[in-house]
């Protein structure tokens, strides 16, 4: 068994418990233990790009440093956590001023300068487990199911910091869908924004954006949509006006591995 440091983030402990539980049980079945650091803080949900914002980046650095001290890679599942933590890691490894100020404040035993390797869970499946190995462990394949992967904005961009996949023509989620026996559906809006936090104050804009995503997936004949992001799931389900089902990718993973029943007991 491999052990990785795991950062669930605020929403996986509250409104997105399924995303978390299926991620953990599936990882274990694939030979990886996901272990939380002893304490962690919310990442803040959005990365602040301003050059003179340091306080808003501290929680991400604390998490990154916890993984460094444990000598393990850091795994995230939520798209927002993944985005914030990877952008922080990218910038602190290149921006001396930022690293100086943050380290000056944190007073860690050893300064943090971007040493930790960060994987999104999907990258862990691709680069550590391997989609071929995953496919061999599938007991309930999604045969004949047309599945639309929704990347949204946070998984891929900005690509120079996230370095997960081609930001305009990604394949990682489609390869995941193939590994669990489904048929990926390619549609125009798969990497466009769902409206995100605008749902707080402008439901009409959230409805317009998430509706465009769901219509695009429906037009290409999708049976369902999968996402890694709790806020995407919320917008696509509650604001889009579409009845096409939306699931966390980890739920399909657990089902494919024959773990879903056990999870629900």
């Amino acid at each position, binding site marked *: 068994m491999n052990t990785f440091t795991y950062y669930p983030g605020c929403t996986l402990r509250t409104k997105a418990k399924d995303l978390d539980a299926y991620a953990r049980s599936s990882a274990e079945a694939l030979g990886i233990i996901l272990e939380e650091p002893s304490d962690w803080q919310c990442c803040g949900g959005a990365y602040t790009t301003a050059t003179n914002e340091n306080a808003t980046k501290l929680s991400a650095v604390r998490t990154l440093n916890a993984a460094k001290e444990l000598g393990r890679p850091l795994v995230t599942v939520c798209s927002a956590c993944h985005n914030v933590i990877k952008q922080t890691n990218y910038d602190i490894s290149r921006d001396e001023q930022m690293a100086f100020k943050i380290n000056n404040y944190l007073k860690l035993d050893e300064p943090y300068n971007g040493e930790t390797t960060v994987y999104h869970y999907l990258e862990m499946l691709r680069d550590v487990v391997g989609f071929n190995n995953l496919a061999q462990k599938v007991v309930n394949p999604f045969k004949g199911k047309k599945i639309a992967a929704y990347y949204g904005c946070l998984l891929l961009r900005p690509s120079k910091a996230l370095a997960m996949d081609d930001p305009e023509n990604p394949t990682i989620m489609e390869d995941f869908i193939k590994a669990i026996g489904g048929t990926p559906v390619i549609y125009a809006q798969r990497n466009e*924004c769902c409206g995100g936090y605008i749902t707080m104050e402008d439901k009409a804009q959230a409805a317009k954006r998430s509706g465009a995503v769901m219509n695009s997936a429906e037009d290409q004949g999708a049976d369902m949509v999968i996402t890694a992001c709790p806020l995407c799931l919320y917008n696509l389900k509650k604001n889009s006006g579409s009845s096409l089902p939306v699931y966390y990718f980890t739920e399909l993973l657990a089902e494919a591995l024959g773990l879903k029943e056990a999870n629900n007991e």
Partner: protein
Amino acid sequence: MNKNLQEQVIRTSGVNVLKCMRCGKCSGTCPSYDEMEYHPHQFVYMVEKGDIEKLMNSKSLYKCLTCFACVERCPRNVEPAKVVEAVRLAAVRQQGNNHLIPDQIPDMLDDDLPQQAIVTAFRKYTK
């Protein structure tokens, strides 16, 4: 034109607005285009011209979704979202100018709204 404010926004953004060649691709790809009074390419242009106050008073500041589409797709690597962010910070960092206050939150909640939405909105709209 307020030179000091312009300098502050440019420094906060870390962007070289002079790289912009006005192709408009950022605005063409912006998911909030229809909701904005000033569009991403105008943010870049108006910051270059020092026309900052108009932007600071515009509701366009709160329509940016931070999706980084304009950052990814700019052929000159200008990164317009960073300019929008810098102007928004110049606005909300002013005393009493938060766009979202905690008392407003209870009315915005429903049983499914993820915490992620609330913390993200706070980070974008409040100092």
